[in-house]
């Protein structure tokens, strides 16, 4: 008979958590010990009853996380703040790099880059008016002086031209006219006529000789053309004649042939007739 197994072994057997060897050993023991078996069966029955207690259905509630779980640097507020801070620093750095200066003095906002430049104060209205008046005055002065000189020059030139035209030219013409006599005029006309006549003569002579030359050349050319024409005509005639000769020769030959063929046929006919 086996020794009684431990309670722990029996309970493991009850829940089927023994390996095959141990299980067999317990089973053997139980077969030999009905009391122990009965005890175990009671426990088995109790287990069955215990299964009457079923699970309760439950809906898991939302688990409340502790606020500390969310760190400060994870909050959207912090993120927004860092975003603003970052953009501000970027602007500041950009401003520093470009040497941006912003100043407010005497209710005047100045935004600039680099070193500030001191500028003279802007002129007052009185000064501006004074300056305008001075410039206008200066302008007027120059204009009036210009006008005066122009006027002077004009009057002078008018005076000069009037003087020269009116008196000097008229006197010279009158003098020349008075100097020219009738004889001189006649001589001049005669000389002109003579010259004209000589020129006409020369022209006629020249033109006549040229005409003669041209006519001669024409005649020569014409005679040469005629000779050429004649020569070519002769050539044409000769060739025509030669061709006619050839044609007649051909004709002769043909007729001879025809004749010979006729003669031959006639002779052939005769021989046939003779044979018949």
């Amino acid at each position: 008979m086996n020794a009684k197994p431990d309670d722990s072994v029996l309970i493991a057997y009850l829940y089927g958590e023994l390996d095959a060897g141990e299980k067999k050993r317990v089973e053997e023991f139980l077969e030999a010990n009905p009391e122990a078996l009965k005890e175990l069966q009671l426990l088995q029955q109790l287990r069955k009853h215990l299964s009457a207690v079923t699970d309760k259905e439950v809906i898991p509630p939302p688990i409340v996380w502790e606020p500390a779980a969310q760190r400060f640097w994870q909050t959207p507020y912090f993120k927004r703040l860092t975003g603003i801070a970052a953009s501000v620093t970027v602007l500041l750095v950009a401003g520093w790099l470009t040497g941006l200066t912003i100043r407010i003095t005497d209710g005047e906002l100045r935004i600039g880059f680099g070193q500030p430049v001191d500028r003279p104060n802007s002129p007052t209205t009185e000064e501006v008016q004074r300056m305008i008046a001075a410039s206008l005055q200066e302008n007027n002065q120059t204009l009036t002086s210009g006008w005066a000189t122009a006027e002077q020059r004009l009057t002078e030139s008018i005076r000069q031209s009037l003087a020269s035209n009116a008196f000097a030219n008229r006197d010279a013409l009158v003098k020349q006219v008075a100097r020219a006599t009738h004889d001189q005029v006649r001589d001049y006309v005669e000389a002109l006529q003579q010259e004209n006549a000589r020129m006409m003569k020369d022209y006629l002579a020249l033109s006549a000789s040229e005409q003669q030359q041209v006519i001669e050349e024409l005649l020569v050319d014409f005679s040469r053309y005629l000779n050429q024409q004649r020569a070519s005509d002769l050539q044409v005639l000769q060739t025509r004649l030669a061709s006619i000769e050839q044609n007649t020769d051909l004709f002769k030959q043909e007729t001879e042939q025809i004749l010979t063929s006729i003669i031959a046929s006639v002779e052939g006919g005769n021989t046939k007739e003779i044979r018949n």
Partner: protein
Amino acid sequence: MHAKTLPDIAMMHTESLITRAKEGDQHAQGKLVQLWYKRIYNYSFKFFLDHDLAMEVSQKTFISMCRNIRALQDTGRFKSWLYTIAVNCCREEARKLKNTRAVPLDAVSDYDGENSPQWEKSQRRHENPERQYQQQELADLLQQCLMELSAEQREVVIMKEYEGLKFREIAEVLNISENTAKSRMYYGLDGLRRILEKKNITNETLSYER
């Protein structure tokens, strides 16, 4: 019945969830809570036989789980790790209860029959009402008997009988030897049998009631 299979099925699904939860994925942590809440609640409920306490313990357990899951070394040990937390929470609550509320637990669980929340929530209401009533009465009775066990035995009996943990796992949860767990179970069952006998409830009457 459920207890034996459900946690195992849940375990299969939780492997990847645990790794994600360890990386701080709150969605995965929420999923883990959804999967395991019923188990922890039912363990706590059977331990205290009190809905409010069970809810409180469950909440504390899962808050602690989410906070400490990074420290979990082996994902395969998640189940026993979670039950360890639950057991510790239960013990803590029990200690508080001892100090503040000196009300006998029998007096607390005074509902039965149609007054019981179990009656309202039961899914088998449509079945034979008399049988349903008897079943409920038996369940209540057994739970009250369970409360008469020592806390040490009660822990083991609930974990073994209703949560379907292996003795190895129970030993791991309670940080005791496997043999100790087994003998606690044995004495727990034996004690239950004796309590039932003391209440004049024999196997015959139980069988009749069933």
